């Protein structure tokens, strides 16, 4: 950057004018780096498969057609506790339901809750963080203290407490899990805004007359978006774990939904007699969480400027 005048102000001016990093191009660079990361690609493929399964199951339910080998809710007591065999790949559970179909059906629930919960955390968190960062002062302090208080309670306990208050059920579970993660996103957004606010070139842009929204779009957004994308991906994996935990305790998604954690919780008594009722739902949870973790880790490495492939 060749600036004749050595004053700081005009340097910032030139910097503001030359600052062309738009949010879209940053995402493109991220994608390029990500593609090179084999583990992340594996994660992405698995997620793709899971989404496919979920959508297929959901679609078939909407259309009233049966695409799964068996109806996940069809219970035949005479067929209970059949170990895995050719007709029941994962065996049947204590009520004679086919485990394989139930697990596939559960994909839909887990992904839905995971994404929905993160959506709530994200939206509320980002808004709160933006208000806090932009307004500053008392608003900022109040909001951040509130966030601190929420963080002072271990997340599972907080989620359980919310569930106790709100009652059981799928929608309540989404809200509870969603509420718990709000402080993280609030912090990220607030932090980004604060660090950029002080930057000289934002001051300079303001002087030129850029409207606040333009400043946000061009300068603040690019930094924040990548960090949030990473957090959200990892957030989905922890939301899936939390959903399963609540389900396991009997607090979350209720029958007739086939939820993996709930399956584990109800089969606890058969741990010695029919271990296969416990193994497969757990594998399903682990694979799903693993996939999102792989993707999230890959994304995190991709936004780290040190590892970028230009």
């Amino acid at each position: 950057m060749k600036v004749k005048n050595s004053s700081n102000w005009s340097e910032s001016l030139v910097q503001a004018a030359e600052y062309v990093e738009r949010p879209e191009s940053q995402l493109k660079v991220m994608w390029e780096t990500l593609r090179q990361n084999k583990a992340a690609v594996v994660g992405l493929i698995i997620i793709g498969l899971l989404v496919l399964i979920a959508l297929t199951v959901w679609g078939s339910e909407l259309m009233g057609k049966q695409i799964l080998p068996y109806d996940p809710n069809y219970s035949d007591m005479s067929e209970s506790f059949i170990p895995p065999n050719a007709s029941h790949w994962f065996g049947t559970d204590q009520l004679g339901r086919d485990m394989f179909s139930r697990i596939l059906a559960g994909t839909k629930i887990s992904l839905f809750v995971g994404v929905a919960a993160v959506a709530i955390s994200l939206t509320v968190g980002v808004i709160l963080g933006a208000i806090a960062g932009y307004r500053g002062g008392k608003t900022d302090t109040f909001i951040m203290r509130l966030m601190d208080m929420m963080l002072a309670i271990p997340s599972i306990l907080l989620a359980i407490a919310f569930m106790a208050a709100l009652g059981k059920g799928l929608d309540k579970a989404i809200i509870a899990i969603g509420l718990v993660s709000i402080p993280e996103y609030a912090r990220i957004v607030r932090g980004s805004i604060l660090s950029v606010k002080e930057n000289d070139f934002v001051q300079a842009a303001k002087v030129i007359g850029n409207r606040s929204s333009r400043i946000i779009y061009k300068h603040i957004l690019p930094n924040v978006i990548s960090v949030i994308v990473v957090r959200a991906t990892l957030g989905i994996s922890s939301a899936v774990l939390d959903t399963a935990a609540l389900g396991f305790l009997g607090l979350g998604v209720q029958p007739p939904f086939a939820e993996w954690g709930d399956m584990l919780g109800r089969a606890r008594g058969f741990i010695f007699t029919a271990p296969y009722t416990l193994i497969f739902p757990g594998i399903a949870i682990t694979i799903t969480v693993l996939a999102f973790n792989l993707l999230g880790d890959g994304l995190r490495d991709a936004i780290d400027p040190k590892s970028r492939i230009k």
Partner: protein
Amino acid sequence: MLKYIIKRILMLIPVLLGVSIIVFLIMRVLSPDPAPIVLGQHATQQAVEAWRQANGLNDPIYLQYFHYLQGALTGDLGTSYYTKSPVTKEILARFPATIELAVVAIILASFFGILIGVISAVKKNSIFDNAGMFLALIGVSMPIFWLGILLIIFFSGYLHWLPSNGRINPLLEPIRVTGFYLVDSLVTGNMNSFKDALQHIILPASALAMYSMAIITRMTRSSMLDTLQQDYIRTARAKGIEEGRVIIRHALRNGLIPIITVIGLQLGSLLGGAVLTETVFSWPGIGAYTVACILKSDFPVVQGVVLLVATIFVLMNLLVDVIYGFLDPRIKYSKKEV
């Protein structure tokens, strides 16, 4: 340094106050009326009203909160709706079990986590490193309760090596000194007790430790990789110091600082995970009890536990910060003259 500690403790107070308010609000305001649940479906309207009156549930909210706060500060956390005994007593009876579990878990997690992390960093990209990181990834992705179940299936069901639930064989319970069976049995020289307690605690502690261990391993590896790149490591090697000493006394000593922070933060997730582990292993601790109380709407207990746990968590964070200050002389000794 002392000023810093005092300042931090003062800052804790509004946070804890806030926590108590949040918990109170969730339990009293958001929740459905506990009376019908406690008294059962067939309770008469009269009985319900009487019960509500007796438990102060008809008072205005701020008054209820005030009474609650008053009690909490003097150690009285209310009375359980069900057992009618003081919440504090119920908590104290079960707390040592949870603490023992959490402490053993954090020791396991820290020891193996740091060990594997350091070796992975030193032998970067080797088979050990890749395997270690893969295991860590799995560890972070597995639900704690499922791991517990798997451990039971394998070690109890299949191998018959270890018991699958409980804390100790009732016949072998040691004399109560601290409430921690492992400590008590050692202190009283009761080796049978010790062995039995150890056998009971090893599976749940391992399940509980897994998640934290995975996180600590990753953190250690990344911190060590960072540290090993530093200039002063090059200087140490240039002095002709033996490599093992360079790694441990120079690199790890520096790399440990952020790791300690991570370990401290893990305590929160351990306390949460204890809830699940205790349920799986029928461990007589606070976690399982709390869940049961939540399901029964025994709110005083839940309030008490959450407040207690939050307080511990916040204090632990402060402790970690203080330790951090001690470990890093740049913080401990503020700059004198330059």
